[in-house]
């Protein structure tokens, strides 16, 4: 086992990890450890935009952004965090521009902005242009820009090192253990601080917009190391994934004027969200699509509806809305080039000529590792800070997204809280001391990995993963009930048992053993899936992304609270709750 | 050396498009011309330094073996010239990249247009020369003796 000593280790090189690394490395000796080459991180797939009330096209204020975020969250977001998010969004986006990020431009040279679901002018209730974008590859440009800045500032990278454990000594952090993918060797990174920025775990579901590598490793590692996870029942289903494949079609399509149509050719969102229609927030649109399909109004009665961005349709509805703006082929191609490319490649459909078949797709984890405003991980309902442990990005839960995240707010979350965490790490490392490593460090994970490597029960990880994804999709999807979720919990228990006892992999080698790592990742997914199902089962209300058929209403009396899930010591999980931080905005019924 | 083997093998195995084959042809034709040119230049310089050798070589070049090689050089020069111009244009007019296929086709077309008549003329000239010699009881396959050109000795 090799040992490296650093002030701080950043796990994950997506938007959150890189932003934190940039800031932390200004005051501390930092290593960024990532299982993928940084530019392969999933932040690169984010399409539509990053929200900030710059007001470059029309009046906008950060307070409006905050209100929209709180409303979008179905009042579950902590409002102090939301204020920080929306206020700092502006300076952070400007900072990204100063780092060279090539945003699209307006004729007057300023950053171009577009409409996005749930973002409104609070006075008129109409959609507002708030999403700053670089065509439909905003995330790609953010990821590239941050990586470029890291190269410029000579940040230390350990690429293709798979983190498998956290080192804790009582109430302090001692570092992490990583598996070097190329050689199969374990490395100890001995540090004063650790930040997890490992992204989401959409791979728990069958149809997802998430990468194969999004397996919630950091979140699961924290859970295993005594960090209760917050709001795990809230997982976002994005309304517009490519039918069957789940590949995301950005909300930006609707922001540019795209329309959802059912099998009868009706613009059904008029029924569900009379004011902002297709630009309602994601949970609302996903449910609407689901209900249309359930009522037999999918296209040809099948499990999908159409997203139509052909100039003909868009212009028709623009005219109906009394707008003067019109779009044409060149416009669509220049604003949504990647979407057009995806549709042509994977659907064989030219979106400028024909509508695209879409269905909701598992997309974003609102819950995760609970943190304070500086990214410090906090434990339990008493909000005790675990010194030296940080989390940022999708794996963390500050919580600014509450029960449902607004489009564009994740990218803001990454850079705003990544930056704050990075700053805090730099400061913390100045004061903290390195501590000592316990003897036998790493033996436990080594044992786990060897058990997977040598398992001989004849069950392939793939079979278990398929079964998990199936049960999650069937039972913990857009709509849920007591019965389905209990079924899921039961299935997952069984799967975890099989995982412990029957797993067998083919590759026993050392070099690039991705078979072994996929199996290890499956362990994380199984745990997170079960926590999700357990937490969802316990929340007897419908709120944001958590929609129950047996409890269709929001219940602020009993559940205006964050859930916290932790192992119960008997192989299951227990829950406790902590209050939501309220502020200017009182819970109201959510109508769009 | 390994990179040479790799490049040669994969230049054939890799499923490239027009540009890859144009490049191969350009490279091979360039080398072929150079091979010929170096001999040609040193040989021609003999017209001044050693006329007897020069005169002999001229006669030697009239044998069919060299005649056919000459047609080959003509092919190489024509293709290399047209393709060289194509490359130059694409380098200086970046936005014309989209004519990569068209431009290759045009190059090959121009080449054929120029080369076929040239080849016919050259071959018919050669055949004419051979039949003339045959009529005179000689053969164009006969390698001329150096001594036949003693009149040009310095």
């Amino acid at each position, binding site marked *: 086992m090799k040992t490296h000593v650093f002030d701080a280790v950043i796990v994950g090189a997506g938007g959150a990890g890189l932003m934190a690394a940039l800031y932390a490395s200004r005051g501390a000796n930092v290593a960024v450890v990532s299982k993928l080459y940084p530019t392969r991180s999933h932040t690169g797939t984010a399409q539509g935009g990053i929200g900030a009330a710059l007001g470059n096209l029309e009046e906008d204020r950060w307070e409006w952004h905050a209100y929209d975020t709180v409303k979008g969250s179905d009042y579950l977001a902590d409002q102090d965090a939301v204020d920080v998010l929306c206020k700092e969004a502006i300076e952070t986006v400007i900072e990204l521009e100063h780092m060279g990020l090539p945003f699209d431009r307006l004729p007057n040279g300023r950053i171009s902005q577009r409409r996005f679901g749930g973002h409104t002018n609070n006075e008129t209730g109409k959609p507002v242009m708030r999403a700053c974008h670089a065509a439909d590859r905003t995330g790609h440009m953010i990821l590239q820009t941050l990586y470029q800045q890291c190269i410029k500032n000579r940040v230390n990278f350990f690429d293709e090192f798979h983190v498998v454990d956290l080192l804790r000594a009582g109430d302090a952090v001692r570092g992490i253990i990583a598996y070097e993918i190329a050689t199969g060797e374990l490395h100890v990174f001995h540090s004063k601080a650790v930040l997890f920025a490992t992204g989401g775990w959409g791979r728990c579901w069958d149809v997802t917009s998430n990468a194969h590598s999004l397996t919630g490793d950091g979140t699961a590692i924290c859970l295993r190391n005594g960090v209760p996870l917050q709001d795990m029942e809230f997982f976002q289903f994005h309304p517009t994934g490519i039918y069957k494949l789940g590949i995301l079609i950005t909300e930006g399509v609707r922001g540019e004027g795209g329309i959802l149509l059912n099998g009868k050719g009706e613009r059904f969102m008029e029924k569900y969200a009379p004011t902002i229609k297709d630009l309602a927030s994601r949970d609302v649109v996903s449910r609407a699509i689901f209900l249309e399909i359930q009522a037999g109004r999918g296209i040809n009665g099948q499990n999908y509806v159409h997203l139509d961005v052909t100039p003909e349709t868009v212009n028709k509805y623009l005219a109906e809305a009394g707008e003067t703006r019109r779009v044409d082929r*060149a416009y669509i191609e220049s604003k949504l080039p990647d979407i057009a490319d995806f549709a042509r490649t994977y659907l064989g459909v030219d979106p400028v000529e024909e509508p695209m078949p879409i269905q909701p797709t598992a997309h974003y984890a609102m819950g995760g590792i609970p943190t304070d405003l500086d990214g410090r991980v906090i434990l339990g309902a008493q909000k005790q800070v675990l010194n030296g442990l940080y989390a940022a990005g999708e794996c963390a839960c500050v919580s600014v997204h509450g029960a449902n995240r607004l489009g564009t707010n994740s990218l803001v979350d990454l850079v705003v809280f990544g930056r704050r965490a990075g700053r805090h790490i730099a400061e913390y490392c100045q004061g903290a001391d390195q501590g000592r490593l316990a003897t036998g460090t790493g033996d436990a994970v080594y044992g786990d990995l060897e058990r997977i490597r040598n398992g001989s029960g004849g069950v392939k990880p793939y079979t278990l993963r398929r079964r998990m994804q199936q049960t999650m999709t069937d039972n913990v999807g857009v709509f849920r009930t007591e019965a389905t979720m209990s079924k899921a919990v039961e299935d997952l228990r069984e799967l975890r048992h099989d995982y412990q006892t029957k797993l067998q992999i083919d590759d026993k080698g050392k070099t690039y053993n991705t078979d072994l790592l996929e199996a290890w990742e499956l362990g994380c997914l199984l745990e997170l899936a079960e926590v999700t199902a357990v937490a969802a089962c316990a929340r007897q209300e419908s709120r944001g992304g958590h929609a129950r058929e047996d409890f269709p209403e929001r219940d602020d009396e009993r559940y205006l609270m964050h859930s916290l899930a932790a192992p119960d010591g008997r192989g299951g999980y227990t829950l406790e709750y902590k209050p939501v931080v309220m502020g200017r905005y009182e819970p109201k019924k959510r109508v769009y | 050396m390994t990179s040479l083997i790799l490049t040669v093998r994969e230049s054939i195995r890799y499923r490239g498009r027009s540009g890859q084959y144009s490049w191969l042809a350009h490279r091979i034709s360039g080398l072929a011309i*150079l091979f010929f040119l170096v001999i040609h230049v040193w040989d021609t310089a*003999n017209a001044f330094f050693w006329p007897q050798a020069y005169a002999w070589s001229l006669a030697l070049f*009239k044998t069919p073996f060299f005649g056919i090689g000459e047609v080959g050089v003509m092919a190489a020069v024509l293709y290399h010239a047209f393709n060289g111009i194509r490359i130059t244009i694409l380098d200086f007019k970046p936005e014309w990249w989209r004519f990569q296929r068209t431009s290759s086709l045009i190059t090959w077309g121009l080449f054929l247009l120029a080369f076929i008549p040239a080849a016919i003329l050259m071959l018919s000239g050669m055949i004419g020369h051979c039949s003339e010699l045959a009529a005179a009881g000689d053969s164009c396959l006969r390698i001329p003796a150096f001594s036949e050109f003693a009149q040009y000795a310095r």
Partner: protein
Amino acid sequence: MAAIPSKTPGKITVRRVKLERNYERAFWLFMRLSGVAMLFLAVGHMVIQHIVNSSANLTIQFVAAQWSTWGWKAFDILLLWMAIPHGIRGLFNILGDYIHNAGARRLISIVLGVFVVATVIWATFAIALFDSTRF
């Protein structure tokens, strides 16, 4: 909002940059410029020498007749000055692709350089001093 124009000439900001002197760039340009020149010189030469006058008729007298004018001498000298450096630089590029050892590369460049100079001088002398009246 209009679509982003793909290219609007005249409105883009063009800036000047100062670069270090670089012989690679000079050679690259030379390959292209000499190529354009040779499109006329080399192809012309081929057509005149090998088609218009079939090489079956080519004799030393014919050459002598041509080189009795300075125009033809200049044509051939110019072609020589273009073709040899162009071809040898091309050969060096090809060799350079496959020979990675810096020392070997230097050696080759020296050998080829000497060869170019020697060939060009030798042949230039031959053409320039050629005395047509002898034939």
